């Protein structure tokens, strides 16, 4: 029989214990408030302060731009609102809307053809069609200038330019060719996830293939199409290289030229309007996403039927090939051609490798810093979910959707005013990369951390590990692959980045991206091409990760 001393018994607490109130000293009140602020799970003070510092420094440049714009003065606001802004608004909005619509058309049709139809070679096209997204758009624009521009291949062949690239239509062509893969990838992923039972249910209810497409498949894809469209619109809004190279005026290029002419106050006003536009697009996204959310009812997915195209097969293949030729083959051919000429003329000299080294240095520094800074932010967000941690997360990620020119403008102001001894150093370029690309590192780090159960942290705590030791001996080893992938992505993004680099680099500090820009602006194609090819090669590195994500 079990012995009596192995006991559990209810206790009768004295009235004193029952009535015990937390003494209402100031310290106790502050403590209580702190507890409530963090929803009962406060992090250590150091971690909280670190997170807050990261969030504020990431958001500061952007907020500062708005702040300066507010003090730009009524007269300047009115003059800009009357003069420049309406025209810019029209040009920006028209190119954004048309690019988005065209990208949706191309992206959805291609996704459908390579995922759900028996288009020949569809497995190869699935990943080849993602390639244009990896190539920075301004490199695409450079390639098209080399091909269709006044001194391009075709013009030389025909004796005159067949088509004015320096126009709305030229910008639309280049932007669409290099942005449509957003829609293509996201819709393709949705098609892959789609359970065939939905379409079978529709068929059993008496619908024909055409009716099924419009009444089941398209509504099912709507969230994916919407997400792809929003992403395309955001990228077009913040696009600088293409519009500036093709001398089309949108907000980003206008801000850039305003800064070049040292009218920074006007630049802040234009930046504020551009940010408002970006927020409006994000608002649309929030609205549509909130209403339409589909959940698959089961995890059992059976791959949908492949539609037999019959003789339309050849038309489908032709469409895929045309897009591939224009978006991948042609740009690569032109760039390779000029690179060969460039190399023959000694383009790969010491200067070239200096540029490459500069690129690697600033991008590498930004990548390492992004990994280090992302860790506390994602840890706070995942393990101490509360208002402050959400705020820190949002602030740290505020540079995500914003154009590089705006970030650069904010940094110029800040460093000029408060930290002038760092102004005109490569450090500013690194900071700009951090503001823009920290969210990428946060995304990867956060995704890996969400795979680690909080019970793991708690177990380590109960085994005698203080919070910071838990972080370094358990959490970091577990999420290291995700952190490194995020860092690699930041590195590649930083290598590709053009506007912030262009604006913030100290004199004489050229990177590969800057060289592509400068040489192609001056139509020295054989000098621009090798740097562009090198950027493309680096950009293609994360293709494998990208495809496995979507």
């Amino acid at each position, binding site marked *: 029989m*079990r012995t009596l*001393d*192995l*006991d*559990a*018994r*209810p*206790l*009768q*607490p004295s009235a004193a*214990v*029952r009535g*015990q*109130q*937390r*003494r209402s000293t100031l310290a*106790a009140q502050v403590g209580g408030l702190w*507890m*409530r602020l963090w*929803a*009962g799970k406060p992090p250590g003070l150091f971690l909280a302060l670190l997170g807050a510092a990261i969030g504020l420094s990431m958001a500061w440049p952007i907020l500062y731009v708005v702040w300066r714009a507010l003090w730009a003065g009524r007269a300047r606001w009115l003059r800009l609102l009357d003069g420049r802004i309406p025209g810019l608004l029209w040009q920006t909005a028209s190119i954004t809307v048309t690019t988005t619509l065209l990208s949706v058309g191309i992206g959805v049709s291609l996704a459908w053809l390579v995922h759900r139809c028996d288009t020949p070679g569809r497995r190869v096209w699935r990943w080849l069609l993602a390639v244009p997204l990896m190539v920075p758009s301004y490199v695409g624009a450079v390639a098209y200038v080399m091909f269709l521009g006044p001194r391009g291949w075709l013009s030389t062949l025909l004796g005159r330019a067949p088509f004015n690239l320096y126009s709305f239509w030229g910008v639309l062509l280049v932007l669409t060719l290099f942005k449509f893969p957003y829609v293509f990838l996201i819709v393709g992923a949705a098609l892959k996830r789609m359970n065939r039972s939905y379409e079978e249910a529709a068929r059993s209810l008496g619908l024909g293939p055409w009716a099924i497409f419009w009444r089941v498949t398209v509504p099912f894809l709507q969230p994916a199409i919407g997400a792809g469209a929003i992403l395309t619109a955001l990228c077009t809004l913040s696009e600088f290289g293409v519009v500036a190279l093709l001398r089309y005026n949108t907000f980003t290029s206008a801000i850039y030229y305003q800064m070049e002419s040292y009218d920074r106050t006007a630049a802040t006003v234009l930046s504020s309007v551009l940010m408002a536009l970006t927020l409006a697009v994000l608002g649309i996204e929030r609205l549509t996403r909130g209403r339409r959310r589909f959940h698959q009812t089961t995890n059992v997915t059976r791959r949908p039927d492949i539609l037999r195209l019959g003789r339309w097969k050849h038309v489908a293949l032709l469409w895929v090939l045309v897009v591939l030729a224009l978006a991948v083959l042609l740009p690569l051919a032109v760039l390779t051609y000029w690179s060969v000429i460039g190399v023959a003329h000694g383009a790969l000299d010491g200067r070239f490798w200096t540029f490459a080294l500069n690129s690697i240095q600033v991008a590498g520094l930004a990548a390492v810093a992004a990994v280090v800074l992302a860790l506390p932010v994602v840890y706070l967000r995942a393990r101490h979910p509360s208002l402050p941690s959400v705020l820190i997360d949002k602030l740290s990620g505020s540079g995500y959707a914003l154009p590089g020119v705006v970030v650069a403008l904010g940094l110029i102001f800040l460093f000029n005013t408060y930290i002038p001894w760092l102004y005109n150093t490569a450090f500013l370029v690194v900071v700009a990369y951090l503001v823009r690309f920290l969210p990428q590192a946060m995304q990867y780090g956060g995704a890996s951390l969400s795979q680690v*159960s909080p*019970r*793991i942290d*708690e*177990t*380590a*705590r*109960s*085994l*005698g*590990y*203080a919070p910071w030791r838990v972080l370094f001996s*358990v959490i970091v*080893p*577990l999420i290291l692959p995700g952190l490194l992938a995020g860092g690699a992505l930041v590195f590649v993004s930083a290598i590709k980045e053009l506007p912030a680099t262009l604006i913030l680099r100290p004199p004489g500090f050229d990177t590969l991206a800057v060289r592509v820009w400068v040489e192609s602006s001056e139509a020295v194609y054989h000098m621009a091409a090798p740097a562009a090819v090198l950027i493309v090669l680096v950009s293609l590195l994360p293709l494998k990760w990208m495809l496995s994500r979507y």
Partner: protein
Amino acid sequence: MQAIELWAVTKTYPGTAQPAVASLSLAVSQGALVTLLGPSGSGKTTVLRLIAGFERADAGEILLTDRRVSGPGAWVAPERRGVGMVFQDYALFPHLTVARNVGFGYRGPDQAERIREVLELVALTGYETRYPHELSGGQQQRVALARALARRPVVVLLDEPFSNLDAALRTHMRLELRRILKAAGATALLVSHDQADALAISDRIVVLKGGTIQQVGSPQEIYQRPANRFVATFVGQSNLLAGVVDNEGAAVITDLGVFACRHDHAYRPGERVYACIRPDSLEMVPELPASDDPVQGTILSLTYTGQALDAVVEVRTVDGSQQLLVRLPSAADVREGQVVALRVAPEAVALVGGG
């Protein structure tokens, strides 16, 4: 000395009105194996997390071996409490081998020796270099237990230790868990929603509902003398019959008849109570003279469970009818619709409050 003392501990989660644990007081003596038993939402896991230090109590005090770890002006972080935790999903570190998992919290110079010792205790010698994903569910649980025991904790807390195991393994692990905890001389507090697990393994059971204690007692006490209607129905099945205590206090008068009850109750003659009759305390009898006063009823349904034949019997009363659950021997020769006579086994009627 008490290993765990909770004094009027209250915890309300942010954003909820009802406290998860409401002014709960409990003492667990050293070396005891105690189960917190309750339905989901009864606050049992919260009690565990409060003791471990993963949640902070709003009021009250928590003492571990006479050390105040939580209370007004006192807070000891989880890592300084010396509490061993075994989670429902085991939470083994996936990047460490079994040996390194077990040695994670034990940093003494004799670490290797201690790892060997506890692995032997949980019968996993030879698995040192395996990784968690290479182990079965039962083995993972042993590793989690070994890891918690390695640093000789003041108290081991186990959250739903059997819920991730299949039925066959479950019965085996109950015995194993008890053997291991007793061999380690550990004080253990378990959380379970399964009364069979609780009855089988515990020295004492604490029944919880709505964040308050319903009853504390040995498994026999809980089963044979439930403190209230909730305990009577939650721990095992019960037939509850409304009635009144007779003049001597030795029987209860119900619509179905007068039943002799246990004598160790605290109800006064004439008090309204419920007679709690377990399905296995009812037995079928051949028709007897009317004086013996068996309960007669019609079998509504029969469920064959292997060990027994569970019958629902409808009994006519003065103003209507009442259904009784009766556990018959599995070989009983009965059929639905048959009229049977039932008798209550002597000393098998417990009284619970009429509230």
